[in-house]
């Protein structure tokens, strides 16, 4: 159930921007969520819907961009991690570092 507290954090951020930018309603939120962030999209949508009900942002839509684990090897090769195995197909090393796929970012808001 960490989607609920993630939704709370998300809506707190929306309120922060509302105070800064002076908009009335947020109609859409674009997010980037990596597979490794272990966020269930449906649970997140449900939490956002429940938390915004009756408020100015009721009915806000979520656009979610999913990313997959990416690794960068010391040999310079970048590759998508398959089955979470960090094997570099170029040099055979398993010491590649994760370079993406754990994002939990808010990208932009559509506001009125």
């Amino acid at each position: 159930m960490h989607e609920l507290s993630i939704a709370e954090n998300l809506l707190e951020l929306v309120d922060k921007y509302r105070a800064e930018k002076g908009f009335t309603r947020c109609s859409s939120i674009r997010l980037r969520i990596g597979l490794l962030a272990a966020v269930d999209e449906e649970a997140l949508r449900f939490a956002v819907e429940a938390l915004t009900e009756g408020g100015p942002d009721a009915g806000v839509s979520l656009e979610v961009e999913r990313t997959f684990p990416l690794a960068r090897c010391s040999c310079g090769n970048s590759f998508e991690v398959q089955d979470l195995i960090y094997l570099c197909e170029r040099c055979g090393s398993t010491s590649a570092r994760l370079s993406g796929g754990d994002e939990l970012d808010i990208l932009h808001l559509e506001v009125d």
Partner: protein
Amino acid sequence: MSTIEIKDKLLSKNDQNALANRNLFDRHGVWCVNLISAPGSGKTSLIESTADHLSGRLNLGVLVGDLETENDANRIAAHGVPVRQIITGGACHLNARTVGDFLVHFDLERLDALIIENVGNLVCPASYYLGEHDRVSLISTPEGDDKPLKYPGAIHTSDVMLITKTDLAPYTDFSIARCRENALKIESELTVMALSVRSGEGLDAWLEWFELHAGKKKKRAESTAAKGK
């Protein structure tokens, strides 16, 4: 209608609170370690045993999170260390703000190390940085040696993985070598140790690691204080 570009981390507020905790730890020379695992992997037993073995050598404090009850805090308090229980009332992880609120209950100047026992859960705690210097995940032998592959987020964000309850390994299909191999596929720079609190097997390596990290922190704080900073 207009678009506002943001590009912010969703948990940036938590990260800010975590950084405040981290600064507080550093100011007082306290080394903080965050223990995460599934329920029943042996976090509390590990803390009890660590407290007993390091008694008189390091001043420990423990912050323990659970959905309900003060049972764990009572168990740990019996070992003579200052302990506070955070009852999350259903929340499946600790967040940095709650941890920060509870830090006022500790005499940080006196502490060398603070152990945070997170809520038993291998999913959510991985996303919430609390300001700790090191994160340790525990996987017990009855849970299965493929657990690192099932919970990559926890393993990927950990500095150390402890395979616990090795005394039970003969009664399960668990392979310590396979579990280690699986974990290193997720995080190649992970330190992996295997131990049993009950038999004492492997405990020395853990205590050595713990003391080394807590001691380093203490020394740095003392030398900073000596310089009058």
